[in-house]
Protein backbone atom coordinates (compact mmCIF):
# COMPACT_ATOMS: atom_id res chain seq x y z
CA UNK A 1 0.00 0.00 0.00
CA UNK A 2 2.90 2.34 0.73
CA UNK A 3 4.00 1.84 -2.87
CA UNK A 4 0.68 3.19 -4.08
CA UNK A 5 1.21 6.44 -2.17
CA UNK A 6 4.78 6.77 -3.40
CA UNK A 7 3.63 6.20 -6.97
CA UNK A 8 0.81 8.76 -6.71
CA UNK A 9 3.04 11.42 -5.18
CA UNK A 10 5.73 10.76 -7.81
CA UNK A 11 3.23 11.23 -10.63
CA UNK A 12 2.06 14.50 -9.12
CA UNK A 13 5.61 15.78 -8.65
CA UNK A 14 6.46 14.92 -12.26
CA UNK A 15 3.39 16.74 -13.51
CA UNK A 16 4.11 19.82 -11.41
CA UNK A 17 7.74 19.76 -12.61
CA UNK A 18 6.43 19.68 -16.16
CA UNK A 19 4.38 22.78 -15.51
CA UNK A 20 7.33 24.55 -13.92
CA UNK A 21 9.66 23.66 -16.78
CA UNK A 22 7.12 24.75 -19.33
CA UNK A 23 7.23 28.12 -17.58
CA UNK A 24 5.86 31.27 -19.13
CA UNK A 25 5.19 30.23 -22.70
CA UNK A 26 5.13 32.54 -25.69
CA UNK A 27 2.06 34.67 -25.90
CA UNK A 28 0.33 32.32 -28.27
CA UNK A 29 -3.40 31.89 -27.88
CA UNK A 30 -5.30 28.89 -29.21
CA UNK A 31 -3.75 27.43 -32.34
CA UNK A 32 -1.64 30.51 -32.99
CA UNK A 33 -1.45 31.71 -36.59
CA UNK A 34 -0.54 29.77 -39.72
CA UNK A 35 -2.13 31.59 -42.66
CA UNK A 36 0.58 32.74 -45.08
CA UNK A 37 -0.30 36.42 -45.35
CA UNK A 38 -1.43 39.10 -42.97
CA UNK A 39 -4.00 41.38 -44.53
CA UNK A 40 -4.91 44.92 -43.61
CA UNK A 41 -8.00 45.31 -41.49
CA UNK A 42 -9.11 48.16 -43.75
CA UNK A 43 -8.87 45.84 -46.76
CA UNK A 44 -11.03 43.29 -44.99
CA UNK A 45 -13.61 45.86 -43.92
CA UNK A 46 -13.76 47.51 -47.34
CA UNK A 47 -15.22 44.41 -49.03
CA UNK A 48 -16.36 42.19 -46.17
CA UNK A 49 -18.63 40.02 -48.33
CA UNK A 50 -15.66 38.87 -50.39
CA UNK A 51 -14.05 37.08 -47.44
CA UNK A 52 -17.03 35.36 -45.83
CA UNK A 53 -16.12 31.77 -44.95
CA UNK A 54 -12.43 32.32 -45.67
CA UNK A 55 -9.58 32.06 -43.20
CA UNK A 56 -8.09 35.49 -42.66
CA UNK A 57 -5.13 36.75 -40.67
CA UNK A 58 -5.00 40.34 -39.46
CA UNK A 59 -2.73 42.44 -37.32
CA UNK A 60 -3.61 45.32 -35.07
CA UNK A 61 -3.39 46.82 -31.61
CA UNK A 62 -5.83 45.24 -29.14
CA UNK A 63 -8.09 48.14 -28.21
CA UNK A 64 -10.89 46.20 -26.55
CA UNK A 65 -11.20 42.93 -24.68
CA UNK A 66 -14.14 41.04 -23.18
CA UNK A 67 -13.97 42.08 -19.53
CA UNK A 68 -15.49 39.03 -17.90
CA UNK A 69 -14.65 36.00 -19.99
CA UNK A 70 -11.87 37.16 -22.31
CA UNK A 71 -13.87 35.72 -25.20
CA UNK A 72 -13.21 38.49 -27.72
CA UNK A 73 -10.76 41.22 -28.60
CA UNK A 74 -11.15 44.23 -30.84
CA UNK A 75 -8.18 44.97 -33.06
CA UNK A 76 -7.50 48.46 -34.33
CA UNK A 77 -7.51 48.92 -38.07
CA UNK A 78 -4.92 50.81 -40.09
CA UNK A 79 -7.81 53.23 -40.67
CA UNK A 80 -8.56 55.48 -37.70
CA UNK A 81 -11.67 54.63 -35.72
CA UNK A 82 -12.18 51.26 -37.42
CA UNK A 83 -11.88 48.00 -35.52
CA UNK A 84 -12.41 44.33 -36.17
CA UNK A 85 -13.65 41.87 -33.57
CA UNK A 86 -12.02 38.50 -33.05
CA UNK A 87 -14.53 36.27 -31.25
CA UNK A 88 -13.36 33.01 -29.76
CA UNK A 89 -15.25 30.18 -28.13
CA UNK A 90 -15.76 30.72 -24.41
CA UNK A 91 -13.07 28.98 -22.44
CA UNK A 92 -11.19 27.69 -25.48
CA UNK A 93 -9.15 30.87 -25.71
CA UNK A 94 -9.14 33.40 -22.87
CA UNK A 95 -7.71 36.82 -23.70
CA UNK A 96 -6.37 38.54 -20.59
CA UNK A 97 -6.93 42.20 -19.76
CA UNK A 98 -3.17 42.74 -20.13
CA UNK A 99 -3.47 42.28 -23.90
CA UNK A 100 -4.95 45.79 -24.24
CA UNK A 101 -2.56 47.98 -26.17
CA UNK A 102 -0.45 45.06 -27.44
CA UNK A 103 0.13 44.37 -31.13
CA UNK A 104 -1.75 41.18 -31.94
CA UNK A 105 -1.82 38.96 -35.00
CA UNK A 106 -5.06 36.98 -35.09
CA UNK A 107 -6.44 34.35 -37.37
CA UNK A 108 -9.82 32.77 -37.97
CA UNK A 109 -12.76 32.44 -40.29
CA UNK A 110 -14.46 35.61 -41.44
CA UNK A 111 -18.15 35.38 -40.65
CA UNK A 112 -21.24 37.46 -41.27
CA UNK A 113 -24.33 37.38 -39.07
CA UNK A 114 -27.38 39.12 -40.48
CA UNK A 115 -29.30 40.47 -37.50
CA UNK A 116 -33.01 41.04 -37.20
CA UNK A 117 -34.24 44.54 -36.35
CA UNK A 118 -34.70 43.51 -32.73
CA UNK A 119 -31.18 42.11 -32.56
CA UNK A 120 -29.80 45.19 -34.31
CA UNK A 121 -31.40 47.44 -31.68
CA UNK A 122 -29.96 45.33 -28.89
CA UNK A 123 -26.46 45.46 -30.41
CA UNK A 124 -26.72 49.23 -30.94
CA UNK A 125 -27.95 49.69 -27.36
CA UNK A 126 -25.07 47.62 -26.01
CA UNK A 127 -22.54 49.55 -28.11
CA UNK A 128 -23.98 52.87 -26.94
CA UNK A 129 -23.79 51.71 -23.33
CA UNK A 130 -20.21 50.56 -23.82
CA UNK A 131 -19.28 53.91 -25.29
CA UNK A 132 -21.23 55.86 -22.67
CA UNK A 133 -23.58 57.38 -25.25
CA UNK A 134 -27.34 57.81 -25.20
CA UNK A 135 -29.30 55.34 -27.29
CA UNK A 136 -32.41 56.19 -29.26
CA UNK A 137 -33.93 53.10 -30.85
CA UNK A 138 -36.00 55.23 -33.24
CA UNK A 139 -32.79 56.10 -35.04
CA UNK A 140 -32.17 52.45 -35.89
CA UNK A 141 -33.84 52.01 -39.27
CA UNK A 142 -31.91 49.18 -40.94
CA UNK A 143 -30.88 45.70 -39.99
CA UNK A 144 -27.21 45.23 -39.32
CA UNK A 145 -24.82 42.59 -40.57
CA UNK A 146 -22.30 41.77 -37.92
CA UNK A 147 -18.92 40.83 -39.34
CA UNK A 148 -16.29 39.27 -37.17
CA UNK A 149 -13.44 36.82 -37.19
CA UNK A 150 -14.36 33.53 -35.60
CA UNK A 151 -10.93 33.25 -34.06
CA UNK A 152 -8.88 30.08 -33.91
CA UNK A 153 -5.65 31.59 -32.68
CA UNK A 154 -3.65 34.70 -31.97
CA UNK A 155 -0.11 35.73 -31.22
CA UNK A 156 1.04 38.80 -29.35
CA UNK A 157 3.81 40.25 -31.49
CA UNK A 158 7.08 40.73 -29.64
CA UNK A 159 7.56 44.24 -28.33
Amino acid at each position, binding site marked *: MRNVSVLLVSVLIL*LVAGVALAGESDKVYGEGVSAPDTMLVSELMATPEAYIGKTVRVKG*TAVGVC*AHRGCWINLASDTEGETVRVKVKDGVIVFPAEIMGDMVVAEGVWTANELTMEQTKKVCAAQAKEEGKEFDEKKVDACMTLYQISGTGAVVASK
Partner: protein
Amino acid sequence: MEMRTFRKWCRTFHRELGFLAVGLTLVYAISGIAVNHAHHWDANYERTLERYSIEPPGTGPTSEIEPVVMERLAITEPVKSTWRAGETEFQVFLEGGGYDVNLATGEVVRHGFAKRPLLFDLNFMHLNSGKAPWTGIADVYGGMLIVMALTGIFLVRGRKGLTGRGGVLMALGFLLPILYAVVSRGGG
Protein backbone atom coordinates in the same frame (compact mmCIF):
# COMPACT_ATOMS: atom_id res chain seq x y z
CA MET B 1 -10.82 -11.11 -5.61
CA GLU B 2 -12.62 -11.52 -2.32
CA MET B 3 -15.02 -8.77 -1.24
CA ARG B 4 -12.95 -8.15 1.88
CA THR B 5 -9.76 -7.62 -0.12
CA PHE B 6 -11.65 -5.50 -2.64
CA ARG B 7 -12.95 -3.26 0.17
CA LYS B 8 -9.45 -2.96 1.56
CA TRP B 9 -8.15 -1.79 -1.82
CA CYS B 10 -11.05 0.65 -2.11
CA ARG B 11 -10.28 2.09 1.32
CA THR B 12 -6.60 2.50 0.48
CA PHE B 13 -7.19 4.18 -2.87
CA HIS B 14 -9.93 6.37 -1.47
CA ARG B 15 -7.80 7.50 1.47
CA GLU B 16 -4.57 8.11 -0.45
CA LEU B 17 -6.22 9.83 -3.39
CA GLY B 18 -8.43 11.77 -0.97
CA PHE B 19 -5.43 13.37 0.69
CA LEU B 20 -3.83 14.04 -2.66
CA ALA B 21 -6.99 15.65 -3.99
CA VAL B 22 -7.55 18.17 -1.17
CA GLY B 23 -5.48 20.97 -2.73
CA LEU B 24 -6.74 20.41 -6.25
CA THR B 25 -10.34 20.17 -5.08
CA LEU B 26 -10.03 23.52 -3.31
CA VAL B 27 -8.59 25.04 -6.51
CA TYR B 28 -11.52 23.85 -8.60
CA ALA B 29 -14.20 24.46 -5.97
CA ILE B 30 -13.19 28.02 -5.05
CA SER B 31 -12.61 29.00 -8.65
CA GLY B 32 -15.82 27.24 -9.65
CA ILE B 33 -17.88 29.46 -7.38
CA ALA B 34 -15.98 32.54 -8.55
CA VAL B 35 -16.38 31.96 -12.29
CA ASN B 36 -19.96 30.74 -11.89
CA HIS B 37 -20.81 34.35 -11.14
CA ALA B 38 -18.68 35.89 -13.89
CA HIS B 39 -21.72 37.85 -15.08
CA HIS B 40 -21.93 39.55 -11.67
CA TRP B 41 -18.31 40.38 -11.08
CA ASP B 42 -14.85 40.14 -12.59
CA ALA B 43 -13.39 37.00 -11.04
CA ASN B 44 -9.87 37.67 -12.33
CA TYR B 45 -9.22 41.38 -11.96
CA GLU B 46 -9.88 44.16 -9.49
CA ARG B 47 -10.82 47.17 -11.55
CA THR B 48 -10.69 50.85 -10.76
CA LEU B 49 -12.29 53.78 -12.52
CA GLU B 50 -11.43 57.41 -11.98
CA ARG B 51 -13.02 60.35 -13.78
CA TYR B 52 -11.59 63.82 -14.09
CA SER B 53 -11.12 66.54 -16.67
CA ILE B 54 -8.26 68.14 -18.52
CA GLU B 55 -8.26 71.16 -20.80
CA PRO B 56 -9.90 69.88 -24.04
CA PRO B 57 -7.14 68.97 -26.50
CA GLY B 58 -9.40 69.54 -29.52
CA THR B 59 -10.30 67.25 -32.38
CA GLY B 60 -7.50 68.03 -34.80
CA PRO B 61 -5.36 65.47 -36.64
CA THR B 62 -4.02 62.70 -34.43
CA SER B 63 -0.40 63.64 -35.09
CA GLU B 64 -1.12 67.08 -33.64
CA ILE B 65 -3.35 66.24 -30.72
CA GLU B 66 -1.47 63.18 -29.45
CA PRO B 67 1.45 65.12 -27.91
CA VAL B 68 -1.05 67.58 -26.42
CA VAL B 69 -3.04 64.78 -24.80
CA MET B 70 0.09 63.16 -23.42
CA GLU B 71 1.29 66.43 -21.98
CA ARG B 72 -2.06 67.23 -20.36
CA LEU B 73 -2.45 63.76 -18.90
CA ALA B 74 1.08 64.06 -17.48
CA ILE B 75 1.62 60.33 -17.68
CA THR B 76 4.73 59.15 -15.89
CA GLU B 77 4.41 55.42 -16.66
CA PRO B 78 5.60 53.86 -19.95
CA VAL B 79 2.94 54.02 -22.67
CA LYS B 80 2.24 50.78 -24.58
CA SER B 81 0.30 52.35 -27.40
CA THR B 82 -2.37 54.90 -28.32
CA TRP B 83 -5.49 54.73 -30.48
CA ARG B 84 -7.75 57.32 -32.02
CA ALA B 85 -11.01 55.46 -31.53
CA GLY B 86 -13.17 58.16 -33.09
CA GLU B 87 -13.29 61.84 -33.87
CA THR B 88 -13.58 62.75 -30.21
CA GLU B 89 -12.20 59.60 -28.58
CA PHE B 90 -8.57 58.96 -27.84
CA GLN B 91 -7.22 56.01 -25.88
CA VAL B 92 -3.89 55.56 -24.15
CA PHE B 93 -2.82 52.06 -23.09
CA LEU B 94 -0.47 51.42 -20.18
CA GLU B 95 0.56 48.32 -18.29
CA GLY B 96 -2.35 47.64 -15.95
CA GLY B 97 -4.75 50.18 -17.35
CA GLY B 98 -5.17 53.20 -19.56
CA TYR B 99 -6.99 56.43 -20.31
CA ASP B 100 -10.06 57.24 -22.40
CA VAL B 101 -10.01 60.88 -23.34
CA ASN B 102 -12.86 62.85 -24.87
CA LEU B 103 -10.98 65.26 -27.10
CA ALA B 104 -13.88 67.69 -27.36
CA THR B 105 -14.83 67.98 -23.69
CA GLY B 106 -11.56 67.01 -21.99
CA GLU B 107 -13.29 64.35 -19.89
CA VAL B 108 -10.88 61.63 -18.86
CA VAL B 109 -11.63 58.13 -17.62
CA ARG B 110 -8.66 56.41 -16.04
CA HIS B 111 -9.08 52.61 -16.09
CA GLY B 112 -6.98 50.39 -13.90
CA PHE B 113 -6.90 46.66 -13.34
CA ALA B 114 -4.87 44.33 -11.20
CA LYS B 115 -4.95 40.56 -10.91
CA ARG B 116 -6.91 39.36 -7.90
CA PRO B 117 -4.38 37.76 -5.56
CA LEU B 118 -4.65 33.97 -5.56
CA LEU B 119 -8.04 33.92 -7.29
CA PHE B 120 -6.49 34.83 -10.66
CA ASP B 121 -4.18 31.82 -10.43
CA LEU B 122 -6.98 29.51 -9.27
CA ASN B 123 -9.10 30.60 -12.23
CA PHE B 124 -6.14 30.23 -14.58
CA MET B 125 -5.83 26.61 -13.49
CA HIS B 126 -9.56 25.90 -13.39
CA LEU B 127 -10.20 27.32 -16.86
CA ASN B 128 -6.99 25.68 -18.12
CA SER B 129 -5.91 28.93 -19.73
CA GLY B 130 -2.31 27.68 -19.83
CA LYS B 131 -3.36 24.61 -21.84
CA ALA B 132 -0.85 21.78 -22.39
CA PRO B 133 1.00 21.42 -19.06
CA TRP B 134 -2.07 21.78 -16.89
CA THR B 135 -4.20 19.57 -19.12
CA GLY B 136 -2.24 16.55 -17.87
CA ILE B 137 -2.72 17.46 -14.23
CA ALA B 138 -6.41 18.18 -14.75
CA ASP B 139 -6.89 14.83 -16.52
CA VAL B 140 -5.16 12.98 -13.71
CA TYR B 141 -7.27 14.87 -11.18
CA GLY B 142 -10.43 13.96 -13.10
CA GLY B 143 -9.35 10.33 -13.03
CA MET B 144 -8.67 10.58 -9.30
CA LEU B 145 -12.19 11.91 -8.69
CA ILE B 146 -13.67 9.01 -10.65
CA VAL B 147 -11.66 6.48 -8.64
CA MET B 148 -12.62 8.21 -5.37
CA ALA B 149 -16.29 8.28 -6.32
CA LEU B 150 -16.36 4.62 -7.26
CA THR B 151 -14.28 3.37 -4.34
CA GLY B 152 -16.32 5.51 -1.95
CA ILE B 153 -19.40 3.47 -2.75
CA PHE B 154 -17.88 0.37 -1.16
CA LEU B 155 -16.37 1.89 1.97
CA VAL B 156 -19.32 1.37 4.29
CA ARG B 157 -21.48 -1.69 4.64
CA GLY B 158 -24.93 -2.14 6.13
CA ARG B 159 -27.74 0.40 6.55
CA LYS B 160 -25.41 3.38 6.11
CA GLY B 161 -23.90 1.84 2.98
CA LEU B 162 -24.98 1.23 -0.59
CA THR B 163 -27.95 -0.90 0.42
CA GLY B 164 -29.23 1.71 2.88
CA ARG B 165 -28.98 5.47 3.33
CA GLY B 166 -25.85 5.64 1.20
CA GLY B 167 -27.73 4.20 -1.74
CA VAL B 168 -30.56 6.72 -1.34
CA LEU B 169 -28.12 9.62 -1.22
CA MET B 170 -26.29 8.26 -4.24
CA ALA B 171 -29.57 8.01 -6.14
CA LEU B 172 -30.31 11.63 -5.25
CA GLY B 173 -26.89 12.59 -6.55
CA PHE B 174 -27.72 10.98 -9.90
CA LEU B 175 -31.25 12.29 -9.96
CA LEU B 176 -30.33 15.95 -9.55
CA PRO B 177 -28.28 16.30 -12.76
CA ILE B 178 -30.65 14.02 -14.69
CA LEU B 179 -33.68 16.10 -13.67
CA TYR B 180 -31.85 19.30 -14.50
CA ALA B 181 -30.86 17.96 -17.93
CA VAL B 182 -34.43 16.89 -18.68
CA VAL B 183 -35.95 20.17 -17.47
CA SER B 184 -33.39 22.40 -19.20
CA ARG B 185 -33.74 20.53 -22.49
CA GLY B 186 -37.50 20.68 -22.20
CA GLY B 187 -37.27 24.44 -21.75
CA GLY B 188 -35.18 24.70 -24.92
